């Protein structure tokens, strides 16, 4: 990696100040994506602003919501009985990210801020209609993910927590890339009294997206068979050496069925 300077600010204001004052500064959460990027010399930050000392860890469970601090690791979420009790699919998703080492370093805030089109957490945030809380504001998930590796975060904006509404049922399933084990297709389903939301990660050229035809069908009948005949157009889906766009489109249906079947 290239040389950079490294800071561990003690509070959000200091961290934001460094980020605002230097367009080449970069916030670091768990580093499970960014450290490999640095090692490959694909980024040349001036300053790494490590968010580790900002006290952003922890899970708060309310009557109708679960709030996960931005620096909470995947392993913590996966093992949380409180999360599993309220949002089964969220705990399950966290336990399916990467491997054991990644789950003990990687964080929810880092995953969502990075918005890798093959990452898992964006599917949960979008399907559950989460609110992304930052040092400046609250952003609805529907407005947060703006494209591949792109979000509505500003240069000096730091995610502090993600608040998830508690659904009646939720489930997540994914089809892994055989090499990287990232999602080729991941589908999160969340059943709320007002209706069902379905978010698809891994497949879309623009990152995570909602599958509205499935949402309508599942709102009418929350059963795996309800999505069996719903086609996802291949247009706008990724194709690569592992899976064509057509195959991904097909997998969205299969994986959605499995996510619904798992939902609890």
């Amino acid at each position, binding site marked *: 990696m*290239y040389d950079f300077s490294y800071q561990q600010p003690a509070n959000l204001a200091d961290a934001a100040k460094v980020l605002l004052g230097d367009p080449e500064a970069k916030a670091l959460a768990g580093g499970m994506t960014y450290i490999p990027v640095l090692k*490959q*010399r694909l980024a040349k930050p001036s300053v790494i602003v490590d968010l580790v000392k900002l006290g952003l860890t922890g899970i708060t469970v309310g009557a109708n919501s679960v709030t996960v601090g931005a620096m909470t690791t995947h392993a913590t979420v996966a093992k949380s009985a409180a999360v599993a009790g309220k949002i089964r699919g969220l705990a399950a998703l966290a336990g399916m990210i990467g491997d054991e080492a990644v789950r003990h370093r990687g964080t929810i805030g880092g995953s969502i801020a990075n918005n890798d089109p093959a990452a898992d957490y964006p599917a949960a945030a979008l399907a559950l209609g989460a609110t992304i809380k930052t040092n400046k504001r609250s952003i609805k998930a529907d407005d947060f993910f703006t494209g591949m590796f792109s979000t509505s975060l500003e240069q000096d904006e730091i995610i502090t927590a993600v608040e998830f509404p508690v659904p009646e049922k939720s489930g997540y399933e994914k*089809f892994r*890339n*055989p*090499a*990287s084990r*990232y999602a080729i297709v991941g589908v999160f389903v969340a059943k709320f009294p007002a209706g069902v939301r379905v978010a698809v990660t891994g497949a879309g050229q623009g990152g995570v997206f909602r599958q509205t035809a499935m949402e309508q069908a599942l709102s009418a009948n929350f059963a795996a068979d309800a999505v069996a005949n719903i086609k996802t157009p291949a247009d706008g889906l990724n194709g*690569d*050496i*592992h*899976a*064509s766009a057509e*195959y991904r489109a*097909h*997998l969205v249906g*299969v994986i959605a069925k499995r996510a619904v079947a798992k939902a609890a």
Partner: protein
Amino acid sequence: MPFEGIGASVRRKEDVRFLSGHGNYTDDINRPGQVHAFIKRADRPHAAINGIDTAAAAKAPGVVAVFTGADMAADNVGGLPCGWQIHNKDGSPMAEPPHPVLAIGKVRHVGDPVAVVIAETRQAAKDAAELITIDYTDLPSAATLKDAVAPNAPRVHDEVAGNVCYDWHIGDKAMVDAAFAKATKVVKLDLTNNRLIPNAMEPRAAIGEWDTSSGDYTLYTTSQNPHVIRLLMGAFVLHIPENKLRVVAPDVGGGFGSKIYHYAEEAIVTWASAKVRRPIKWTAERNESFMSDAHGRDHVSTAEMALDTDGNFLALRISTLANMGAYLSTFAPCIPTYLYATLLAGVYKTPLIYCEVKAVFTNTVPVDAYRGAGRPEATFLVERLVDVIAHDTGKDRIAVRRQNFIPADAFPYQTPVALQYDSGNYQATLDAALKAADYAGFEARRTAAKARGKLRGIGVSTYIEACGIAPSAVVGSLGARAGLYECANIRVHPTGSVTVFTGSHSHGQGHETTFAQLVSAQLGVPIEQVEVVHGDTGKIPFGMGTYGSRSLAVGGSAMVKAMDKVIAKGKKIAAHLMEASVDDIEFADGKFTVAGTDKSKALAEISLAAYVPHNYPIEELEPGLEETAFYDPKNFTFPAGCHVCEVEVDMDTGVPEVVSFVAVDDVGRVINPMIVEGQVQGGVAQGVGQALLENAVYDAQGQLLSGSFMDYTMPRADNVPNIKVATEVTLCTHNPLGVKGCGEVGAIGSPPAVIGAIVDALRDYGVRHINMPATPGKLWSIIQSGRPAMAAE
């Protein structure tokens, strides 16, 4: 003393240091005053170099020196040599274009080394390399076999027309064509053998050191054959005589063939260490491994079998395109010829075989031997063709095999493609494997799987390989520029402990244990008193190294010969000490005994007398007890066997899973069953990897798309089932141990068994063959587009 001899599953002596992090690998070695090299590589597949500006890099902090191909040329450094010459059909030699250590004039593949920066730290070298500017003119590239043989294809080497390295053949074409003309049925199959990237766990590394006092060079390197590297680099590249060049290959973390060859980086650090007068270390980063380690396989073939009315194989006709990559790697030309076409008889009595092979240059990384080397390509072709013959003629796959097997009483058996098999029993390994796999009960398992939404299939491969390479005179006549014997030195120390110096090299195979067992068995010494030393031209008399499953068959046989000499000398000493005739001395269990008496002397008493020769036949016998032997094999060895694989394919996603795997191998006499089982398991894991997962993919321009573990699918633990391993034994008839070799059987036998199982799983979808890797997307397409014969059920 526990049983530690031949046939004992002795725990691997070397594993304590490996598993506790105390292995001593090349990158673990640091020499006083050492500096670091970083190689600037081509980022494009094919371009003319108009100029290289190294001025800024040379002035960068910490930089000691920057060199390019011009610097090496000015020093009269030679190109990287090729160790095997193939001749064309017309008798002319193959095209052998220059392979400069650092590119001169042109780059020909992504990863081609262009310049080297030597600096105080690795980081400084890497930083400075970014300051090198190379003025390129991009040229059109030939990225795949198909592109390279197309009319008017861009030339990888200006002097090589049509990109053809050689156009070679074996067998009697006229007789084969005549047999086809008379055949009642011809079955044809087009198939590819996918390109693989070896990915040894330890990346390649090299340290060059020049002794300012003696002028001697030392190269520490990740090699399977340090003496071969000394020969190639010393004689052809750097012009350093053997007495001034030592090559050390310490612990090496996997090779699979990729560490046989002499690579540019070895020559660069050795040459430059004298220029800068400091030791220089280079260690590959993983992405460099992907673009600079020799790749494996990459064939496109058409195979045809002529059959008579009864389904007997009459003649086999094959045409193969083999990818050489951009330059000839050390042994590349022999892989798709003498290690491939000579195995096309397989285990069958096919009387006539003709094979033509066109080796082709492309703008890709050089291709050379990879675990199995030619023999997996032959096995995949023959075994897939046999399955397709069964499919096309409506016969049972097993019956077709049994009908055409070389019978157990036909050995020695002369094939129509040069080899003479010494021993084997193909019915026996087939029977044992079918029984262990419960082949008879398969259809019930298939039916049960269907109820779970899984398509279950079973595949069988009855393979053979040629190992223990090789008789020097034979390979010499076929174009090898080296002999392929092995050397061993057995040093019995004064107190009776033993050091074995072997030219074989261990990079994971467990030689320190297996060879110690051999010594223990023959000399009667406990294995903890046996030390096995390999991998250092400064210690070992000579050696040709480890590849082609040759270490035990050739290297072990050399040890047996050397120990025979030790025992013969020991008998003379014992006869003197016990005042008996040499002819009356017998040696067994570590003791020299006067026949028919209870008078005996232990080996340690004899060795002590040899080194303290006070009472010693000094007039006729030299002191000391140390013997060297070279063993040149009389023939190849021919391990064979049967692999049975069961898979389940998910009907919704196309995902295949290997649910059962049985390997019954005849590797001759087994010295350490546990090590054999481990070798077979590792080989099968690589075979499953090739069949289902691994694929080196270049885009149309020649960029490597599968250039990291993010996209190159290495098999992981959850891709590989528990593998049932068993052995059936027919002894090799021509080496003293009766051993055949076990290092490659897993990788050779398994891919057609896996693909056979996949095709069987999809038998209702109108498919008779699937090329590797059988990825989920590929299988889903077949399921989607196929017309299931029983769709109505």
